[in-house]
């Protein structure tokens, strides 16, 4: 059942979809990078994302400055990600794939429970006064948080793109993603490159966590649950290990979810729709949107 579509509603939904897509992209891009170098389905990435939100709140309450909160949370989350790589995934590389997957699930459970123990069971809030409010633009309502999310995502991705394309570290990462063995032979410090990927991916996820916390004004222990499996779906839709693919998939999912929940009466939840999309896509195009067979 298609309902009447008014132009302003359509525009508003596009703004909503763009913000939603940016949030997905911030999680998916790290997952895709990590999958690219290690071939690990990093479910605990959602735990890092939640950690980012809690750390951001901690630093914000401590200093009252959003910039410090964001930078501090990203730094610590990045280090946390690198530590996970060093002490959990690296020893597991020679073992069957399912080993790292189960460890990742265990880690995610651990992190979620740790947040509850440290921060309490109640939902916390991150109300940043400077970001409250919105302005209207030819009938569209755009909140300041939306702008920060979309702008921040764009800036982060631009920086990431420059780093990957135009620096020595970026070259090393790309080489490792191609083939670890060859990279080793070429004299590339594989361990350092993988660490860098985990650091970058985790820092971006933490940024995503803080943005979501501000957007919904809510920080809670299970906020990573939905992200954990939706992130996996996104990197599969995008094409395993393809960063561009993951970003593309994120925005497509943001738009599809928004459109399908409002303009149709498909009797499925938002998550159900996302997963149905995933199933159909895997069947039609197993290598994903931008993946190479």
């Amino acid at each position, binding site marked *: 059942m298609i309902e009447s579509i008014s132009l302003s509603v359509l525009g508003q939904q596009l703004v909503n979809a763009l913000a939603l897509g940016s949030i997905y992209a911030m999680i998916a891009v790290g997952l895709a990078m990590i999958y690219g170098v290690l071939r690990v389905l990093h479910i605990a990435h959602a735990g890092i994302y939640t950690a980012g939100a809690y750390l951001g709140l901690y630093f914000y309450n401590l200093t009252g400055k959003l910039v410090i909160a964001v930078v501090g949370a990203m730094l610590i989350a990045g280090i946390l990600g690198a530590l996970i790589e060093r002490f959990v995934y690296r020893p597991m590389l020679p073992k069957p794939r*399912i080993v*790292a997957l*189960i460890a990742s699930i*265990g880690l995610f459970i*651990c992190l*979620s429970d740790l947040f509850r123990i440290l921060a309490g069971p109640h939902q916390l809030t991150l109300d940043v006064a400077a970001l409250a409010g919105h302005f209207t633009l030819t009938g569209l309502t755009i909140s300041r948080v939306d702008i920060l999310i979309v702008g921040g995502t764009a800036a982060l991705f631009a920086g990431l793109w420059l780093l990957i394309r135009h620096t020595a570290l970026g070259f090393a990462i790309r080489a490792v993603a191609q083939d670890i063995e060859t990279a080793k032979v070429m004299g590339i410090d594989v361990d350092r490159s993988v660490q860098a990927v985990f650091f970058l991916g985790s820092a971006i996820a933490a940024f995503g966590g803080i943005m979501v916390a501000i957007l919904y004004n809510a920080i809670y222990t299970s906020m990573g649950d939905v992200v954990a*499996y939706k992130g996996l779906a996104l990197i599969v839709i995008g094409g395993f290990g393809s960063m561009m693919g993951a970003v593309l998939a994120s925005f497509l999912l943001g738009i599809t979810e928004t459109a399908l929940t409002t303009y149709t009466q498909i009797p499925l939840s938002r998550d159900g729709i996302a997963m*149905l999309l995933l199933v159909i896509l895997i069947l039609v195009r197993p290598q994903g949107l931008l993946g190479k067979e």
Partner: protein
Amino acid sequence: MLDAYVVTILILMGIWSIIALGLNVITGLAGQFNLGIGVYMGTGAYVSAMLTTETDLGFWQALPFALAASAFMGLLTGLPALRVREDSLAVLTIGFVFVFESLLVYLPYFGGPVGISRIPRATFGGAPVSNEIYLLIVIGALALSIAVCLYLRRSWMGLAWESIRENELAANVIGIHPARFKLYAFTLGAALAGLGGVLYAHFIRYVTPYDFGFIPSIYVLVMVVLGGLGTVRGPVFGACFLTLLPELFRFVQDYRNLIYGLTLVLLMLYEPRGFLGSGSFVVRAAQTCGAALRAILASKRSYAANP
């Protein structure tokens, strides 16, 4: 008479063991990732629940339909799984379980999110059974499942699965058709998981879509891997252990999930084959002990022979 609480725990241990064995057929024996065992468990549970509440069929009459439905669901989800492997397959099965849960939630025919309540008890000789008798039924079903798995492992099917698991290309070359055997694995594993689902439904006697979602599916996978993927003793041990664990750890009430997660990480770091997987430290220790015992017994016999 056993304490009803102990009976409850034993029944749950039996039910989860059967479901874990089902997943083990797919993932352990045939080597196909599956993070969505809840689909088959849920199919069995829902079909049995619907038939026994909406029609005149009893537990035993509904059972074959429920098993057939879950086996069919296994076949249905196995077909697309032929196209993809490894990580794609893992994520695809996650997709399945979410779509399944979503459908159950949004189709009012299946009771919606509220699920199906007042599911009748299993009957024996026309009368509803007590939990003690139900425990015997569960133990019987578990024994049967174990027997089937042991047989499957040693049969030609088990050999074919092993070769697919080790090297699919090579299996193809020696004339084993991987697709066919993968479908066998999905169908048989799904039927076992469906059996577990039926037993679950008639024990808790109330099912909702959320009982068969992603989290329970992961939980079963963890049971299988923790016990020892690919063995028969492993999944049963893993299921019993993880069902008992929260009960044993009640004294650390506040930190149960933390300990649970940590156990998984540490086990994967130091004993990825699981507690009872072939070659794990427990199995090696047991073998050493057995060998020592045999040696002692043998030496005693030799004394007896030469007084």
